[in-house]
């Protein structure tokens, strides 16, 4: 997907001014509330007319103020998944799913109903009314409905924000299937850096109606580490849980991590670990209360505001720890050096079972 947008839109004292050109299938639009993310995607979908500018998608001009072009939403083939699922309450799940499909030209129909129902696990829900579905089921139906419209681009406007934490990370694999399974490029809008890293490769960061950065989602997380109260979030896929001394032992990249017993129901899962919860030692400490002590190689260093991010290679895995510049000087941390890290068993937080 190749998208170039150069648009302006004003509402009272707020002005969105965006000039960007992106190429890729998993693009993110990141920013806090009121940064103009939703305005931008509404203009892209044709639901809101810009004051001026131009929008070109895959070489086709969707909007041009100077040329007087403004394709209607139904002519753009850009489907949207909304924050609040927006399922039609008077239609069954099946008819919701088929709404866009029936309006799609036969030559554009590349995704069939059965495959979609299978991938999104909607088979058992088809004849139910949408008001009886759970939040996660509703969002899966909304996603399926948008996919079945066979769009050339899918816009996901904070599709996870209405869901609780547990559901949010269960839905992500389904959202990723848009590109992985069905080959539809998407634009994912969110104010969560973790969601951005799980869902996108390239991110456009907006603030107060202006495009601040265009970078990879991983790079953005590192740039923002010093500003974030939770630091950089390490995402770890832990597998093969066994119980040991009242704790849970997981396999991670050829090594072992001990987690508190509250995770005893999760055999494999996605866990988060804040960069602030990793303590660095220059030498092997004599005794320590933290249950995880790992020997690591410093793979790199980066600065973020007044913090230093230390990239650590632990076995086959990578972690990022956050320290202050003074600590980096005292420990003499440099690329290629050896350090020991300590992580408390309770510092890990489960995001989703795998």
């Amino acid at each position, binding site marked *: 997907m190749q998208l170039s947008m150069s648009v302006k839109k004003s509402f009272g004292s707020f002005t969105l001014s965006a000039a960007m050109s992106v190429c890729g299938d998993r693009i993110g639009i990141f920013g806090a509330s009121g940064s103009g993310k939703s305005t931008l995607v*509404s203009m892209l*979908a*044709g*639901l809101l007319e810009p004051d001026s500018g131009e929008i070109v998608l895959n070489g086709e001009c969707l909007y041009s103020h100077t040329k007087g072009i403004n394709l*209607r*939403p*139904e002519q*753009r*083939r*850009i*489907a*949207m998944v*909304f924050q*609040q699922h*927006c399922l*039609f*309450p*008077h239609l069954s799940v099946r008819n919701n799913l088929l*709404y*866009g499909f029936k*309006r*799609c030209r036969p030559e554009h129909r590349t995704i069939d109903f059965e495959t979609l129902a299978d991938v999104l696990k909607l088979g058992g829900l088809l004849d139910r*009314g949408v*008001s009886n579905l759970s939040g996660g089921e509703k969002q899966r139906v909304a996603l399926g*409905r*948008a996919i079945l*419209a066979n769009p050339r681009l899918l*816009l996901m406007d904070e599709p996870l924000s209405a869901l609780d934490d547990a559901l949010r990370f269960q839905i992500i694999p389904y959202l990723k299937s848009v590109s992985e399974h069905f080959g539809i490029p998407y634009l994912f809008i969110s104010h969560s850096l973790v969601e951005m890293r799980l869902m996108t490769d390239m991110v456009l960061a907006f603030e107060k109606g202006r495009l601040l950065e265009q970078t990879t989602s991983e790079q953005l997380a590192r740039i923002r580490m010093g500003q974030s109260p939770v630091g950089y979030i390490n995402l770890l896929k832990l597998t093969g849980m066994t119980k040991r001394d009242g704790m849970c032992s997981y396999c991670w990249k050829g090594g072992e991590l001990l987690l508190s017993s509250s995770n005893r129901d999760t055999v494999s899962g996605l866990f988060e670990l804040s960069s602030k919860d990793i303590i660095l030692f220059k030498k092997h400490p004599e005794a320590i209360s933290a249950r995880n002590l790992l020997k690591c190689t410093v793979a790199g260093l980066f600065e973020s505001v007044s913090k230093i991010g230390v990239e650590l290679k632990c076995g086959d895995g990578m972690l990022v720890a956050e320290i202050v510049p003074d600590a980096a000087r005292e420990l003499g941390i440099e690329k290629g050096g050896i350090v020991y890290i300590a992580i408390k068993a309770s510092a890990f937080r489960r995001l989703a079972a795998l």
Partner: protein
Amino acid sequence: MIPLASTDYDAIRLSVQVATAATLLSLPFGFAVAYLITFVTFRGKLLLEVLVNLPLTLPPVVVGYFLLLLLGRHGWLGSLLNEAGIRLIFTLKAAIIASAVVGFPLLVRSLRIGMEGIDPHLINASRTLGACWHDTLLTVILPLSLPGLVAGSSLMFARSLGEFGATIIVAGNIPGVTQTIPLAIYEYASSPSSETMAFSLCLVSVAISLVVLFLHEMMAKKMARRN
């Protein structure tokens, strides 16, 4: 058994006929006006809202008088219709028009409340799924406005059954032609010997209203269950 004269049966038939025709005639216009007020931004919207609601605040006799000025033989519209050989004043058509005008604000209000309750994102979702505006209107807005439409139609039908002031001015009180239940009750009530007949028609009026309200409640409940 309620004692009823043959003219009373005519009055009942005419009342139902007038109320049904006025309601059905107003539905497309009411839907269009409610749609415009709810979803479209245009200059003069406030004026349209005021004009639509005007019959609700005016005495029905005033509405009837204006209709008489408009549709009468020398009226602005009446003279044009007269040339085309169409006469409205003192006909059933005039009674229907009078009921439609007086009940119209009730229909629009209910429809508007129904439409305002539709999440605008549903309309946006429909458009991004490939539906053009009239497709969205028929497949999203209309079905979701049904509770408002049922409520508005019931109110309008009930209001039309009771319409008196405007009807007597533009349609007169001709038994078997324009005499509806309220007009017949008025005629009976004017003569002291016909109290029983007036009371009988009052009971019929109450019975019809109860049936309409019961039907409305049942349909509203059915739709609420479905949604």
